[in-house]
C-alpha cells in the first residue's frame, strides 16, 4: 500500500515538472512574438499597435449520447486555438467600439489569415506557436489599423458628444493556476447514458428521446503587452435528457432534465439519474393526456425552483451586463437586446425587499457545485463580487475593460469573450420570506380577490441551450420554437384551483414577461434553489469571437408575480404520427 502511494507521488512530481517546462515554453513563445510585434509591426503611414493580447485555449471534448438503450455517438477530441487582439490608437480612442459593416459583419473578403479562435495544431511547440501567432497578429493588426482609420475618418465631420474612453487602463498581474483536470471515465459514462436512455423503451408513447453527457476541461494561457499574464484551468461536466412527443391533437410536447457539475465525480448517483430519467418520461406521458389552457390566462403566476431560475437567467440577468454603444459610419448605435438597464443605475428594478448580487467566488451552494464560479476573467482580472440590486434599486452592472457612459471600471466579468453574469444570487429580506405553502395560499388569495377560478404555478421552463441544440434534433425539427420577444416557453405548469387542487397543464407560453416585470414580484420563498445552466452569451459570439454558451448559476427562491399572461401556443400543429410506434408492437 505504502509503495503504491510512493510511486504515485513520484509520478505526480515528474508530471508537474514537465508541465512546468511546457507552460514556460508556451508563455515564452507568446511573450517573444508579442514583443516582436509591439516593436516592429507597422504598416506604412498607419499607426503602430498600442496593445496586443494573446490567448491560447486547449480544450478536450468528451461526449456520448444514447437512444433507447444504444449508443448513437461517443467520442473524444482535442481542440487548440489562439485568439489575438490588437488595438491601434490609444486607450482614449482606438479601433474598437466601431462597427464597420464591410469588415465586422462579413469579415474581410480577402483570403486573410484568421485571428479569432484560429485553430492550431493540437500538437505544438515553441516554433509552432510563434508561427501561428505571427500570422494571426499580422492579420489582426492589418484589420485594426484599417478600422482605426475608418473610425477616425467617420468622426472628422461630427461633433462627438460621448467621449467615453475606448479601453480601461488596469494594473497588470501574473497568475498561474495550472491544474490537472480530473479524469473522465468515458466507458462508464457511455454505459450510464446507455442505461438511462433504455428507460424510454417502456414509454412507447414518447416518439423520440436522447440522453447525453459531456465533459469539457480547458486550459488557457494569456499574455498581453501591458504585462498581464495568466494560466487558467477550468472544467465542467453536463448531462441532459430530452424527450419529445405529440399529443393526439398534434400539440408538440417535450420534457427534459439537465444536471451540471464541475468535477464529473460529483454527478448525481446512477440511481438518482435513473429516477430522473423515469420522471422525465412519466411526466411527459402524463402531459400527453393533460388538458391545455382553454383560454389565455392573465393573473398571478408562481415560479418555483427551476422555473424561477430560468426566468432570471433568460429575462432579468442578461440585462445586468454593460453594453457599449458602438459607433458606425452613420452614428452611434445602441443595441436594443438586453439593454433595459444600461441607463437605469439608481432606479428601482425589483421590489424593495429583494437584493441581487453576482458572486463569482462562490464555489458551492448547499450541495451544488456552481458553474459560474471562476477566479480570473478573460482579461486576467480578479473576478469581483458585485452588488447589483440593493433593496430593489439597481446599483451597478457587470463590466469588463470596455467602459460605458455609466460604468467606467472593470469588475472582472469578461467571460467567454464579453461581459457576462456568473453566479447570480437573489436575496430576500428575512421578514418577507414565505414557505412553500404560504406562497401557494397567497396565490390562491390573489385569485379569489380577482375572481379567477385558478392561478398558475410554473415548475419547469424550457432551457434555451437545450432547445436550440438537442431538442431541435430529437424532435426532428418538430419542436415549435417560441415566436417574438419576451416569451418563456413552459415545460411543466399547473393550474391551482382556489380549493388548493393542482392540475397539470400541457404546453403554454408566458408572454410579455420583461425585465420590468420583476418590479412586480410580490412574494418570494424561503428556500433557495441553485441551478446550473449554459446561459446564452449576452453579447453575441458572432461579434466577440468567443463562446455562444457560458456556464452560469442562478440561486433563487420561488417567485410570485402579481400579473403575467399564460396562453397555449396559437399556431396550427402538425399532425401526430400516422402509424403507431414500433415500440407498441408486441
Amino acid at each position: 500500500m505504502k509503495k503504491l502511494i510512493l510511486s504515485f507521488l513520484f509520478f505526480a512530481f515528474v508530471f508537474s515538472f514537465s508541465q512546468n517546462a511546457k507552460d514556460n515554453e508556451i508563455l515564452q513563445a507568446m511573450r517573444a512574438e508579442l514583443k516582436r510585434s509591439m516593436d516592429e509591426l507597422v504598416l506604412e503611414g498607419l499607426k503602430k499597435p498600442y496593445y496586443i493580447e494573446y490567448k491560447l485555449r486547449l480544450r478536450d471534448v468528451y461526449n456520448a449520447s444514447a437512444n433507447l438503450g444504444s449508443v448513437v455517438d461517443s467520442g473524444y477530441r482535442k481542440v487548440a486555438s489562439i485568439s489575438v487582439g490588437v488595438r491601434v490608437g490609444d486607450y482614449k480612442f482606438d479601433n474598437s467600439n466601431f462597427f464597420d459593416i464591410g469588415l465586422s459583419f462579413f469579415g474581410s473578403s480577402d483570403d486573410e489569415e484568421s485571428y479569432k479562435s484560429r485553430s492550431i495544431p493540437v500538437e505544438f511547440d515553441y516554433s509552432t506557436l510563434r508561427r501561428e501567432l505571427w500570422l494571426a497578429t499580422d492579420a489582426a493588426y492589418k484589420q485594426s489599423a484599417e478600422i482605426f482609420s475608418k473610425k477616425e475618418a467617420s468622426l472628422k465631420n461630427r461633433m462627438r458628444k460621448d467621449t467615453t474612453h475606448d479601453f480601461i487602463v488596469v494594473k497588470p498581474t501574473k497568475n498561474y493556476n495550472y491544474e490537472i483536470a480530473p479524469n473522465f471515465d468515458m466507458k462508464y459514462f457511455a454505459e450510464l447514458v446507455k442505461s438511462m436512455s433504455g428507460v424510454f423503451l417502456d414509454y412507447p408513447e414518447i416518439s423520440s428521446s436522447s440522453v447525453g453527457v459531456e465533459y469539457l476541461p480547458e486550459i488557457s494561457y494569456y499574455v498581453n503587452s501591458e504585462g498581464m499574464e495568466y494560466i487558467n484551468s477550468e472544467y465542467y461536466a453536463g448531462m441532459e435528457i430530452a424527450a419529445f412527443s405529440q399529443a393526439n391533437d398534434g400539440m408538440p410536447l417535450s420534457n427534459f432534465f439537465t444536471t451540471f457539475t464541475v468535477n464529473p465525480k460529483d454527478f448525481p448517483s446512477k440511481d438518482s439519474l435513473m429516477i430522473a430519467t423515469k420522471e422525465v418520461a412519466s411526466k411527459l406521458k402524463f402531459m400527453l393526456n393533460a388538458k391545455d389552457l382553454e383560454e389565455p390566462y392573465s393573473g398571478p403566476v408562481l415560479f418555483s425552483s427551476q422555473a424561477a431560475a430560468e426566468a432570471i437567467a433568460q429575462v432579468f440577468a442578461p440585462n445586468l451586463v454593460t453594453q457599449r454603444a458602438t459607433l458606425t459610419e452613420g452614428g452611434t448605435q445602441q443595441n436594443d437586446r438586453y439593454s433595459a438597464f444600461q441607463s437605469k443605475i439608481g432606479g428601482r428594478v425589483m421590489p424593495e425587499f429583494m437584493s441581487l448580487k453576482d458572486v463569482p467566488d462562490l464555489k458551492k451552494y448547499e450541495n451544488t457545485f456552481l458553474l459560474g464560479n471562476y477566479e480570473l476573467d478573460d482579461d486576467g482580472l480578479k473576478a469581483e463580487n458585485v452588488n447589483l440590486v440593493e433593496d430593489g434599486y439597481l446599483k451597478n452592472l457587470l463590466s469588463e475593460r470596455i467602459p460605458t457612459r455609466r460604468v467606467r471600471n472593470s469588475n472582472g466579468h469578461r467571460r467567454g469573450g464579453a461581459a457576462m453574469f456568473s453566479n447570480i444570487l437573489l436575496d430576500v429580506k428575512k421578514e418577507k420570506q414565505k414557505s412553500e405553502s404560504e406562497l401557494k395560499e397567497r396565490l390562491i388569495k390573489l385569485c379569489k380577490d380577482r375572481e379567477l377560478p385558478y392561478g398558475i404555478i410554473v415548475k419547469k421552463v424550457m432551457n434555451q441551450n437545450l432547445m436550440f441544440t438537442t431538442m431541435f434534433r430529437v424532435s426532428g425539427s418538430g419542436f415549435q420554437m417560441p415566436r417574438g420577444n419576451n416569451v418563456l416557453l413552459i415545460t411543466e405548469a399547473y393550474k391551482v384551483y382556489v380549493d388548493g387542487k393542482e392540475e397539470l397543464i400541457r404546453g403554454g407560453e408566458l408572454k410579455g414577461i420583461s425585465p420590468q416585470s420583476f418590479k412586480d414580484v410580490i412574494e418570494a420563498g424561503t428556500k433557495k434553489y441553485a441551478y446550473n445552466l449554459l446561459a446564452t452569451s449576452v453579447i453575441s459570439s458572432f461579434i466577440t469571437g468567443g463562446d455562444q454558451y457560458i456556464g452560469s448559476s442562478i440561486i433563487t427562491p420561488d417567485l410570485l408575480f402579481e400579473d403575467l399572461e399564460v396562453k397555449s401556443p396559437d399556431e396550427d400543429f402538425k399532425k401526430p404520427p400516422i402509424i403507431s410506434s414500433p415500440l407498441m408492437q408486441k
Partner: protein
Amino acid sequence: MFKNKYLMAFLMLILISNMVAKDDFIVTSAKKELDRTMMELSKEKIKPYFISYTITDVESNTISASFGKIRSSNNDTKRMLDIDLRVGDNKLDNTHIIRGNPFSFTFGGGTISLPLDNNEKAIRNSLWFATDRRFKAAIERYEKVITNKAVKVAEEDSSADFSIEKPVVFTGNEIKFTVDTKKWEEILRKLSAKFLDYQWIYSANVSFMTSIQTKRFISTEGSQIVEWESNCRLYVTAQTKSDDGMSLPLYETYFSFNPDGLPNEQKIAQDIDKMIDLLDKLRKAPLATTFSGPAILSGPASGVFFHEIFGHRVEGHREKDPNSSQTFKQSIGKKILPEFINVIFDPTIKTLKGQEIAGYYVYDNEGIKSQKVETVKNGIFSNFLMSRSPIEGFNTSNGHGRAQAGYSPVSRQSNLIVEATQTVSEKKLREILIEEAKKQNKEYGLYFDQVSGGFTFTDRTIPNAFNVTPLVVYKVYVDGRPDELVRGVDLIGTPLTTFTNIIAAADDMGIFNGICGAESGGVPVSACSPSLLVSLIEVQKKQKSQAKPPLLPSPISKKAN
C-alpha cells in the same frame, strides 16, 4: 376490388421476404419496419408507392498535420439513415419539379443518426419517427405538384418521375482494413515538416483520410443490397503569396481503395520537394494578361475541363428542369466533338492504366447496378447519365443515381474517361500548338499543367459559362524562347464553342481523382483524359486578394526570400 389489391400487396410482401439473401441484423430489422410502414400507410388516402431505406455505416479516420505537428487526429463511427419516400405513382409523384418556384430546393431532410449497435427497437423507432416526417412532407409536396401542374403550361418533357426497374438482392464482399494511426501520424509529421524551412510558405497541410462504408439499401420493390465501399486519400496543400497579394496554392492528391495502395513516403516527399520548388517559382512569376488563342490542356487539366463543361451537362435529370440550359437535349445523334473523341463514364472499373480511380462503385445510391455509359462515340452524342428519374427517350437508369449520405440521389458522374482514337506524341502536340499560335499571329500559346478544379453554371438564369481554375500555367513562345511560368488567370468559356475547337490529342493519359460537389452532396469521381490541344481558349484575370503578405518575416524559418 379493394380486397384484391390488399391480397396483391401481401403476396408481394411474401415474395420479397423470400428473397432475403444473407442475414444482416440491421437489414432484417429495417425490413420489418419498412414492411409494417408500407402496409399501414397504404390505408391512407394518399399513399406511398415506394419507400427505400439506405443505412450507411461510416468508419473514418482523419489525420492532418502542418509544419511537422499533428493538427488533428480523429476517428469516427457513424450510422446514417436516408429515406426515399414517394407518393402518387411513378408517372407523377412528390419529387416532380415545381415550376416557377426559384426557391424549390430539394431538401434531403438532413442526416439522421441511428444507434450503432444491433438494437432492433431503437433502430426501428428512429426509422418510424423519420419516416412519418418524410411521409407528411411528401404528401404536402405532392399536393403542390398537382396544383403546379394544373396552373402552368404543359411540360416540354412529359416523362415519368420514377423509372421502373428490377429489384436486386445482392451482398458484396466485406472490406476490412485497419489503419495504423501512429504510423501515419509519424509519416504526416515528417512530410509536413518539409515546409518548415520556407518562410514564404504561409500555410501547408498534409492530411490523410480513410473511410469504410457499409451500405445497406432496402426498398419496397424488394431490393436488398449490402455492400462495402472504401476510400483512402492523402492530400498535400501548400500556399504562398506573391508580393501583390495573390494567393498561390498548390495541391497534390493521392488516392487508393486501401491505405497500402497509397504511394510510399519517399515518393510523396519527392513530390513535396517539387511542389516547394514550383511554389517558389510561382510567387516570383509574372502576371499573365487576358489572352485568347491556342492552348494545351494537360491530361488532368483536360479531365477537369471535361468534367465541368461536359460531364455536368450530361447528368440526365437536368434535362427535365425547365430552368436548366439543357445543352445537349437536342443533340442525340449529332456531332458535338471532333470525331476522334469518345467520352465514356465507367463506374465498373477500379483502375485505369494501372492507377486506381475513385469513381468506382458496384451499385448506385438508388440500388441500381453501375453501368458503363458511352456518351460520345466518334464525336457523336448518344447518351445521358441516368438516375431513376427518366427523361424523354431515356426511360431507365444506367446506375448513375448518386448521393452523399444525407442527400437525395440525382444523376451524377463516375469515372469520366476521354478517349482519343487518333493521337500524336506529346512533343508533336507542342509543335502543333506553336504552329497554331503562329497561324493566329500570337506571340505564344498556353500550356495548362495543373488545375485545382472549376465550376460551371447550367441554369438558364445565368450565362452558361464555365470556369476552370489553373494552378500552373506556362507560356509557350513561338520564337523558341524557353517556356515561361505565369500566374493569375482563370480559363473561361462557353461549352459548345470550346468543344468544336479541340484539334488534337496526345497519346498520354492524365488522371484526376476528386470529390465532386453538387445538389446531392460530395461524391468521389475521377476525370481521365489525354492532353488536348484547343485552338481557341480564353483566359481572364483571376480575382485576387488585396491583403499584403505578412509584414514581418517568419519568426522561425531558416530560408528567407
